């Protein structure tokens, strides 16, 4: 299998969909002339022209609203936010213009829009540029929220997101843009929105994670296996709708749950999953479900503090050992 970076996978996903459907267009800051702030849209302007790859002024509220309206009118916009922190400027359009429209119009008006961009912590970019929005958007009915990790999933799910008639929040990660993975082209069509995957099979504890936390979880599983704890790692891939089936079946097998996310724990994705575990797998739990998350503080700027504020591999191991009643 060929190796590909996440960046390239995302670009290829957009390019393939833009080739298939001329209503698909990309809009955002620096997406055209600059080839993308993170070079995700490299080469797209050359292939598709300025009508399909649109540079905007620095006005998220403006171009998000514009794109949402165009989606209601029949186009299929991909809106790139330089990070999802800036999307807060546009959040009224994301929630009230895009997410709620299908419902409020009695099904008559669709909004097939994709909002994508880096989410969560990068490297020393400060608190205002490091928030994870997975929980915020997953809270809202009317949105699909996707947070894939490896290249194959990124490509497959971005394509599915663009094809989806629903407004989709597509959460990427700046650090993993440069990660290389095997690209499993053959499985691309089979990967669906709303389906998690078992990234590592295990029997002793279920560890759920999404985006870059999947890397932490897999590294923790490796360490734990040497201690005799056989962890099952679930890459959630989609946050809304959560693949509850996969999670619950795993808990029924392992009797234990540890959720991992980089964002804050309070009212986070982990909180939702732990709650579901109690509701749907109560009698199978041998210990309390545990959440591993970023510390409850705006993310520090100093490198050492930033590291401490984000969940480490050892944090995951500690939680797993606790629920396994092992020191």
């Amino acid at each position, binding site marked *: 299998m060929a190796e590909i970076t996440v960046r390239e996978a995302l670009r290829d996903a957009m390019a393939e969909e833009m080739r298939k459907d001329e209503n698909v267009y990309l809009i955002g800051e620096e997406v055209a002339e600059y080839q993308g702030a993170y070079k995700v849209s490299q080469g797209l302007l050359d292939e598709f022209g300025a009508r399909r790859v649109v540079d905007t002024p620095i006005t998220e509220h403006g171009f998000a609203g514009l794109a949402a309206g165009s989606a209601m009118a029949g186009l299929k916009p991909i809106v790139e936010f330089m990070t999802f922190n800036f999307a807060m400027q546009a959040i009224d359009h994301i929630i009230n213009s895009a997410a709620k429209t299908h419902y409020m119009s009695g099904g008559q008006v669709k909004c097939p829009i994709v909002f994508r961009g880096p989410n969560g912590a990068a490297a020393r970019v400060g608190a205002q540029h490091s928030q994870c929005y997975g929980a915020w958007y997953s809270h809202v009915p009317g949105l699909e929220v996707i947070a894939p990790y490896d290249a194959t999933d990124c490509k497959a799910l971005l394509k599915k997101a663009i094809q989806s008639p629903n407004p989709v929040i597509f959460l990427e990660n700046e650090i993993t843009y440069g990660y290389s993975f095997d690209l499993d082209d053959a499985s691309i069509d089979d990967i669906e929105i709303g389906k998690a995957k078992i990234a590592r099979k295990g029997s002793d504890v279920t560890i759920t994670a999404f985006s870059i936390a999947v890397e932490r979880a897999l590294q923790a599983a490796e360490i734990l296996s040497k201690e005799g704890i056989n962890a099952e790692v679930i890459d959630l891939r989609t946050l809304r709708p959560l693949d509850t089936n996969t999670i619950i079946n795993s808990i029924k097998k392992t*009797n234990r749950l540890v959720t991992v996310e980089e964002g804050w724990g309070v009212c986070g994705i982990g909180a939702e999953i732990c709650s579901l575990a109690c509701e749907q797998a109560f*009698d199978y*739990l041998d210990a309390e479900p545990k959440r591993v998350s970023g510390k409850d503080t705006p993310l520090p700027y100093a490198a050492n503090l930033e590291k401490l504020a984000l969940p480490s591999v050892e944090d995951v191991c500690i939680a797993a050992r606790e629920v396994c009643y092992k020191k």
Partner: protein
Amino acid sequence: MPIEILMPALSPTMKEGNLAKWLKKEGDEVTAGDVIAEIETDKATMEVEAVDEGKLGKILVTEGSKNVPVNQVIAVLLEDGEDAKTLKDYKPSEPANDDAGKDKKEDKAATPAPAPAAAQPAPAKALAQPIVPVVNSVTSQNSSVTASPVAKKIADQNGINLASVKGTGPKGRVTKEDVMHFLSQPNSGSVVNRVADEAISIPNNNIRQVIAERLVASKQTIPHFYLSLDCNISDLVKSRAQINDAAPKDESGRPAYKVSVNDLVIKAVALALKKVPAANASWTDEAVLQYNNVDISVAVAIDDGLITPIVRNADQKSVLNISSEMKSLATKARQGTLAPEEFQGGGFSISNLGMYGIKQFNAIVNPPQSAILAVGAGEKKVVVADNGEFKAIDVMTVSLSCDHRVVDGAVGAQFLQSFKYYIENPATLLL
């Protein structure tokens, strides 16, 4: 936060106990499950197991202290990272079952609050450590033991009482592994399923009440003594077979009669009573009433108890008559259709448990009668014959219970000798 160790309630009604012995001293490490002290009540001495972990920080009730109320703090455990300094400002909390104004220092010698509600151990604030919980139904009791949901599920499925599973989780929680380990132990096969309701209540019907009254009165007022005798019934058995073989049979092959050993016993008793009429009598304060008729009460087991229908003038009736009369009386007894004169009266009783294999027993005299013969099962025995050789015979043990006011030992013995003669010589029953 220091963990308080409280005086445990060793039974639901225990109010106080003596702290007999400390098995740990201040500074010792304590893990869940360690025996830390011995508590004495007036019933027993029990061990106290620690539920929490830590270091024994301070002993507040010394060895030998008596009348320590349940729930009083007897010691304090320091958790990880705490040391003696943590105890400087420590004040033990009031035992949960105290009256509002009571000073804690008086508790050691004082008796706890008399109100029954206050004497209940383990209210919400400070739980006394359970030692041997009263075993109730598996699931309802399991719900009060700290265990993970899946541990409870597995325990319930296998009928395991969680209180008997050692919990190794935090705060003594029983984990799945604990239950699985318990299951894998060899003696876990002897799983006990206890029914929640201790007993069902069967209301006493008339017969039960009458039996109770009469037999209690009998045992309390009659001076009983007991005589036993073995009878060789080999010939009786043969005779009975002969009698029954001779029975004419109807079209469907049913015999006209079937004589039981008990029928023959009744006849033998009747004849013996004629010989020893002193055994067929009743006590009154002024006189012993010796009956002129031989009326024999025969115990018959029925659904709710037993009843004694009477064969009147049994000495004058043939064995066949006795047999058919007994059959009809027994049927009526089981149907509950005996007339009063059919079971009220009689001068002597017979009770036969031979059909149940009972070898020997002593029955209770039915007042106003003075004696009752308890008949056991016949069994083959090897005895030494007159010529010194071994032979096998059928032996039946009979036991006579006597009212000593009426029947002395010699009289009772004479009666039994007479009975033995008749029963060992069945031809005499033809007379």
